């Protein structure tokens, strides 16, 4: 098992009028190489689930096990050794005032001790040069440019590269193409598939695009009100239609119509 969530619960602002049950007992098991797409309406708890895995907030109860290690009590920066993350906001994954190669160098050291070694070695630069070529954005010729000069799409592609530069046990993607224009988003999604396939990455990808959710990955889960209400894999998943998912969603929400954002694809 590469990732295991055991009855994970989370309530925000417990005991106040803003109390919000975000996760009401999540059980999830991922085999090595599983690529799960996650769908669900706004506020279903998708991001919260990923944040729990990454340790952004402590769990109320339950356990999180990554590759056999119980990380439930570990702070986020320690768990980062096992996780690659890409956020929805393209600005969040990179340091704007630092060079492309400096950003990569930090990602290259994910989960490792940082010491007083100075600068970036020639060998490292060659690795970054080769890796950047994969993006086909010409960034390999601008390695000393500040990341702040790049477009949102370029930054998101770079973040994706950074998240996988050190092979993560689990890759967490939270609507990482949602803030990009459709063309750029599609490109970043292609890159995602390429990287996941090449490195056999165990991946959890939240998306609001149902077509993408069906097309990508070997398993799909749907969340609603803090629960996983639908979990489908293999052949059965490949045969899904957007209409099937909408049906499931309406069933779960008691006949309410799926919101526009979910239908859009």
């Amino acid at each position, binding site marked *: 098992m590469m990732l295991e969530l055991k009855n994970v619960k989370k309530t925000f602002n417990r005991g106040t009028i803003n109390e919000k049950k975000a996760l009401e007992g999540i059980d999830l098991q991922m085999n090595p190489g599983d690529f799960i797409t996650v769908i669900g309406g706004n506020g279903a708890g998708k991001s919260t689930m990923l944040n729990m895995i990454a340790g952004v907030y402590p769990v109320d109860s339950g356990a999180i096990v990554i590759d056999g290690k119980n990380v439930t009590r570990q702070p*986020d920066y320690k768990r980062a050794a096992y996780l690659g993350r890409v956020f929805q906001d393209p600005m969040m994954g*990179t340091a704007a005032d630092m060079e492309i190669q400096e950003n990569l160098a*930090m990602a290259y050291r994910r*989960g490792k001790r*940082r010491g007083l*070694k100075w600068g970036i070695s020639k060998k490292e630069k060659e690795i970054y040069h080769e890796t950047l070529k994969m993006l086909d954005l010409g960034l390999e010729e601008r390695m000393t440019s500040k990341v702040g000069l790049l477009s949102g799409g370029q930054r998101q592609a770079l973040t994706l590269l950074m998240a996988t530069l050190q092979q993560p046990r689990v890759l967490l993607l939270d609507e990482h193409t949602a803030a990009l224009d459709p063309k750029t988003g599609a490109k970043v999604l292609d890159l995602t598939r390429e990287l996941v396939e090449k490195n056999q990455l165990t991946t959890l990808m939240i998306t609001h695009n149902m077509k993408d959710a069906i097309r990508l990955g070997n398993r799909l889960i749907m969340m609603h009100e803090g629960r996983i209400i639908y979990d489908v894999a293999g052949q059965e998943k490949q045969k899904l239609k957007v209409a099937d998912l909408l049906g499931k969603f309406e069933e779960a929400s008691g006949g309410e119509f799926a919101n526009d954002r979910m239908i859009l694809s």
Partner: protein
Amino acid sequence: MLAGILSSLPGAVSQGILWGIMALGVYITYKILDIADLTVDGSFATGGAVCAVCVLSGMNPLLSVLLAMLAGCVAGAVTGILHTVFDIPAILAGILTQLGLYSINLRIMGRSNTPLLKVETLFDKLSNLLPGLGSSYIAICIGVIAVVLVVVALYWFFGTEVGSEIRATGNNEAMVKALGGNTRLMKAFGLAISNGLVALSGALVCQSQGYADVTSGQGAIVMGLAAIVIGNVLMGWGKAFGTKMVSAIVGSIIYRIIIAVVMQTGFVDTQDTKLFSALLVAVALAVPVMVERHRNKPKREE
């Protein structure tokens, strides 16, 4: 008046250089870590106090400066711990340390002002080596040596893995955490280094003027900001880290020259310098904002 201004220049330049090291400390927190750290006013005086007491006890003046620097690091670390372990907002954490330091500095010296009588400071030593050179020029020499050492050391440090992580922490905390960096530790570390430099500056200023005073750090943070802002106005084209550090030093020198010139005109009294400094910084910070606002205003059709 012109003669007066000219004769006050060497003194202003030497003060600008010695206080410039303090500005470098402020640069680390204000620009690199994006934290407004008010520990500075206290740790500057701590540097002077520790240095004075050490020198008076017969310690080598250079060693005294290093010890003063260490004391500043500890003061910065205290602010760092208040801020990162106990989640006290950085500004308040700095104010708390600064307030506490006032009493501690009095304790260190046992009084509010400690003259360095009958002891040999670094400046005296160099003066003996180079007889005939005025005290301002001696201070400039020592200041330049200290600044070069500090700038080289910082340039090296912020190019290391840990240094990069501190820079990234000020830039994008979420990213550093996602990449396994301990941002709390980095902030505390940065605050310690920053206040170490501030105390180093305080120690050198103390030796150059021949006394330590508990109030010597009053308004230091404002002078540090003034140096950074003026430096940015003059050398804003330079984006490289080395240039930024040099611009803070240049800013500090120009700031002292402005103060010296204004004093010579007689419009401003010694007791008014703090008000003048505050106004200078307020204007320097406000002007770019106003310019930007004016530029973005939709043009009215004539």
